[in-house]
């Protein structure tokens, strides 16, 4: 771009002040990038540096030891996170995709706009508030903390993201594809499910994975729903450990051994999240639609 400017103005040179200002701003913008990337590098660097030494077989297979004893691991927290995420997806993914289908295929009207707006509002609700609501809805009625309550909280957080991406992806499918199916006598619901939704599959999966990555690290909504547990638990009606909760508890504890474990747990959590985000990126770069590229 600067080439254009200088060559056009060989007859009337740009003043030193203006050129200086231009250079200064370019420098400042590049500086901003460096300053923003610095914490990213620092966070990842420290996670690897502090975390890798504490990840071992025991960490991945054992449950926490009492404070003061060395060893032990976060196996129950990893399993608990998987359980809570599974329960959350069980409710969140179908509802999210269904609402997305509604918005794309039936919701091109004022009511659709209301739903769309509500989904965006829900997306901005702080996660701690979702925790309060799940506490009121599930924990109070059940009488105790449980994996289900955590799952409900995570599902509420997943739904708006999945809804909006599903809608966006379905709208990418050309209308001609729908019309071709109708022309062959395929009913509308069949067209939506096996033609439109199938064409947009990779895009929809992208949205699901993004929602998944977003809630996988959530701690605040689990504080008073899943609550945490220092033992194995497979019952969905019982308090359950979760990786982010365990990291939080260990990080604010006064024990060095627990701090090390917090770093190790954080490293595992971030690897899982970055892996899913990168997978999404890879899928997205190949195109959101089947056979479209």
């Amino acid at each position, binding site marked *: 771009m*600067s080439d254009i400017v200088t060559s056009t*103005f060989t007859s*009337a040179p*740009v003043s030193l002040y203006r050129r200086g200002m231009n250079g200064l701003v*370019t420098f400042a*913008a590049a500086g901003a*990038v460096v*300053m*923003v*990337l610095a914490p990213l590098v620092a*966070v990842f660097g*420290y*996670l690897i540096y*502090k975390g890798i030494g504490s990840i071992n077989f025991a960490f991945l297979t054992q449950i926490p030891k009492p404070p003061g004893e060395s060893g032990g691991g976060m196996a129950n927290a990893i399993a608990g996170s998987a359980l809570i995420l599974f329960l959350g997806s069980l409710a969140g993914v*179908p*509802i999210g995709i*269904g*609402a997305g289908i*509604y918005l794309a295929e*039936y919701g091109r009207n004022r009511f659709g706009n209301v*739903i769309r707006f*509500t*989904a*965006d*509002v829900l997306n*901005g*609700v*702080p996660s*701690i*508030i*979702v925790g*309060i*609501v799940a506490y009121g809805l599930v924990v109070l009625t059940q009488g105790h903390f449980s994996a289900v309550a955590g799952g409900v909280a995570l599902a509420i957080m997943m739904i*708006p993201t999945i809804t909006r991406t599903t809608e966006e*992806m379905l709208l*990418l*499918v*050309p209308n001609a*594809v729908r019309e*071709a*199916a109708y022309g062959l006598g395929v*009913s*509308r*619901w*069949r*067209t939506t499910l096996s*033609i439109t939704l199938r*064409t947009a599959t990779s895009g929809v999966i992208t949205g699901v994975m993004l929602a998944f*990555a977003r809630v996988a*690290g*959530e701690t*605040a909504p689990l*504080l*008073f729903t899943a609550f945490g547990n220092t033992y194995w638990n497979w019952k969905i009606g019982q308090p359950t450990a979760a990786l982010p909760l365990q*990291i939080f508890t260990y*990080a604010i504890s006064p024990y060095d051994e627990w701090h090390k474990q*917090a770093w190790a747990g*954080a490293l595992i959590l971030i690897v899982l999240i*970055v892996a899913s985000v990168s997978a999404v990126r890879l899928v997205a770069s190949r195109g959101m639609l089947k*056979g479209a590229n």
Partner: protein
Amino acid sequence: MPGPQPVINKEVAVPAKSEGGLLVNAGDSQFADRVFSWAMLGCALCVLAIVGLIVYELATKSRLSWHTFGLKFFFQSDWDPVNEHFGALPFVFGTVVSSILALILAVPLAVGVAVFITEMCPRWLRGALAFTTELLAAIPSVIYGLWAIFVLVPLLREYVEPWLARYFGWTSEFTHKLGFQGPFEGAPYGIGMLAAAIILAIMVVPIVSSITREVMTAVPQQQREAVLALGATRWEMIRTGVLRNARAGIFGGVILGLGRALGETMAVTMVIGNSPQISASLFAPGYTLASVIANEFNEATGDTYLSALVEIGLALFIVTIIVNILAQFLVWTVTRGTPARANV
């Protein structure tokens, strides 16, 4: 193009195989269609129901506190669970100050990053940079908190806060005349308002910068070319051609960042010090609306205590909703002209 043709044919050919069956069942399909559309409508209504439930839960569970304290709940500063006297002012103060401070730190950086990515950087670097800044948004709050406790806080305690106190400590002479502590006065604990603001700033940057990028991309290319053709340098082009057109949307991004900062819980809870006090010093510990819920909800004994915490949640909910709606409106004013990405 003969290449993609067969692929599209294949997509459509799948149901065509069972064409006979579908045509025979044409009578049933009307019923099935209706059931399907109702099911999808049900899913969409779930979204409405969830927001309704949130409002209902927060409103009913905070009623007790509302009746006991009324509006003065938010203007009183004593938080005394033992005597069941609750005032949320320290939390409002902590939330507002930490968020505003975070925005002051984050906005110039975020806009700088957006300008660099969209207008300055070479094409091959663009994708990678955009992805990396978005990666910042993917890091969970609890990991930021962990990093802040063990890396940022010691850094602030040992170097940054003593440095600030030394070179900017003179500001307290003025504030003392007004009856306040200076902003850089007091013992440098590391943990406190400044640490919370910095970690919030790091978390808010990717949001503000991605919205800024979005609205900058929405500015028509002709605007840039026109300004350049008038002999502007690149910076003058960005300032008059791009930033001026996108300013409402950028402001929307900033407001969206504010919404995120107001509701952010874990990272702030881990570094702000969690002490319900109002201090003008940035080195002093504070407390926010979200972190008091996170810390005390499980231990809240007594109905009034719990109800007061839920009322704090309700206030936080209402404020973030208003902030988010405002932000969406502002972004929409810039991007409405461009064809929606999803339209064919």
